[in-house]
């Protein structure tokens, strides 16, 4: 698998990130690199700061110290909608779909940054705007086809079962054609079959579109199987970073997960 993809240069570099909420230190001096086209997993016990890390990367949280460098651009504070324009997309741990909208509309919303016509054209829904809607519909239909959700494209997402909602959320992120895809527990609460499907989609996305993926996951089997590199967080600090086999053998990681005898 890894033979086909060329893992390239560093696409995202986090330098000495520290983030605290009041007196609570969520992240302490974390430095992580993500290379182009790789699948990187962030793991760690509950409350280790994994989701905070993703929130820093896509601009939801602004770290007090440290910088994020994405494609040569260094920043500390940037709004999420600006990082979205740079090509970073993500999914959420708790499904954050637009409940009142159909699957298709949810995925079409993922195309937001790519559409250009202003609201006056949209009020006419004619000419250039119609052309634009149809072009983007075609892209969305490819995503729908890829995720095999053709039969539910007009269904309001609130009516779908959990596993499918997770898939639609992945579709919404994919519709933006991101370079960097952040997945926050894409397999939480799924059964084995759904997990296998989701793994296949993640690997296919990585393989076919060359999308760089950073994912948070608790299922160690999945993490060890699909990721090229694993970073381990514990109490807001990075305790290990490397290929899965190496991380699995790391004494600090074992201690963090199993506890240490005192």
């Amino acid at each position, binding site marked *: 698998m890894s033979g086909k993809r060329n893992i390239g240069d560093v696409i995202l570099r986090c330098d000495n990130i520290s983030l605290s909420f009041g007196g609570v230190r969520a992240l302490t001096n974390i430095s992580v690199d993500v290379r182009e086209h790789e699948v990187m997993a962030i793991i760690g016990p509950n409350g280790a700061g994994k989701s905070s890390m993703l929130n820093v990367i*896509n601009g*939801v949280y602004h770290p007090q110290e440290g910088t994020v460098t994405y494609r040569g651009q260094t920043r500390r504070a940037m*709004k*999420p*909608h600006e990082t*979205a*324009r740079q090509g970073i*997309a*993500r999914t*959420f741990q708790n499904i*954050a*779909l*637009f*409940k*009142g*909208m159909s699957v298709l*509309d949810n995925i*079409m*919303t*993922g*195309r*937001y*940054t790519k*559409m250009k*016509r202003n*609201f006056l054209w*949209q*009020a*006419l*829904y004619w000419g250039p*705007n*119609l052309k634009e*809607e*149809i072009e983007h*519909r*075609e892209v969305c*239909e490819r995503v729908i086809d890829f995720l095999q959700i053709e039969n539910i494209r007009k269904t309001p997402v609130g009516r779908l079962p959990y596993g499918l909602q997770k898939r639609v959320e992945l579709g*919404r992120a994919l519709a*933006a054609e991101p370079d960097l895809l952040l997945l926050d527990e894409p397999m939480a609460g799924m059964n084995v079959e759904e997990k296998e499907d989701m793994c296949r989609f993640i690997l296919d996305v990585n393989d076919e579109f060359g999308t760089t993926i950073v994912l948070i996951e608790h299922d160690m089997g999945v993490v060890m199987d699909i990721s090229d590199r694993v970073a381990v967080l514990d109490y807001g600090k990075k305790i290990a970073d490397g290929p899965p086999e190496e991380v699995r053998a790391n004494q600090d990681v074992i201690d963090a997960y199993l506890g240490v005898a005192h």
Partner: protein
Amino acid sequence: MLYREAGQFKTSYQKDQAIFPIRQDRIAVWALLLAVFIAVPLLADDYWLGSIITPLLVLSLAAIGLNILTGYAGQLSLGTAGFMAVGAFAAYNLNIRVPELPLIVDFLLAGVFAAMVGMVFGLPSLRIKGFYLAVATLAAQFFIEWVFTHVGWFTNYSSSGVISAPPMHILGMTIDTAVEKYLLTLSVVAVLALGAKNMVRSRIGRSWMAVRDKDISAEVIGVPLLSTKLSAFGISSFYCGVAGALWTYCYLGTVEPAAFDLNRSFQVLFMIIIGGVGSILGSFLGAGFIVLLPILLNNIAAMIGHGTLQADTMANLEHIIFGGLIIFFLIVEPHGLARLWQIAKEKLRLWPFPY
């Protein structure tokens, strides 16, 4: 049995994205348009046209405006009547101060002024949500009413504080009969309703609904929250502003700021709650319900109760039944008449089979 879509294959995305993808619906809509543009002016008398149908259409337009803001973008507002007042007074002032402008341009500019005011009062929406935002828009309502009552310039220093709409001319034609006013209102409402429908099924409408349903993931997708909320306030107020101008010119003729008081805001809010929050069709159904039902009750009461009950008892009974019906419909379908209509259509597609 007649309402079947079997055999109607959609072969392009354009056809799939049409407002009425089913042929029977398209026929029905064209028939409805013919009816309201030709049959209604021929059949209805001046009382019905001028005092019931025209205000009903204008209130539908205001309801569309509020539905864009509250139903689609999820920003609760009680300033509807205030924004209508801005439109009414802007159209009046444009008309008397810049008489060269054509009437339709006056109406559109009145909407633009209302949009600007709406966007100013929409600024707090970035920080406050829900009921708290409703209170902030309530401030807009009272402030606007106060300004038009106390600043004489807006009423052209009329001693009574009342403005009278000047005679209307479009392309050399004078518009003064009830039928002409009805047709003008209907045309404006039809065009703007189509525009609203188009917007809510395009990028801007999706961004509104995204902000309504989950603002955090909307922002992560690339939807900037402030400008999206402000666009909803602006476009919503544009619709309310045009409605206010039509209310003055085509319905009342003479208007004082008190015509756009808080009760009017509540009336429009009830229309969208009963008609369907987040539905253009619901705006019309809700306006119809609120405007027509009291008249219907009144007529029924006059038929049955004539002579048996005292007039004031009758009036109270009407209010009780009206309130009871509102509660009944909200319990039967909290998503409003538009959802009932949608369910009925889905059932009709299968009828006479249960599924």
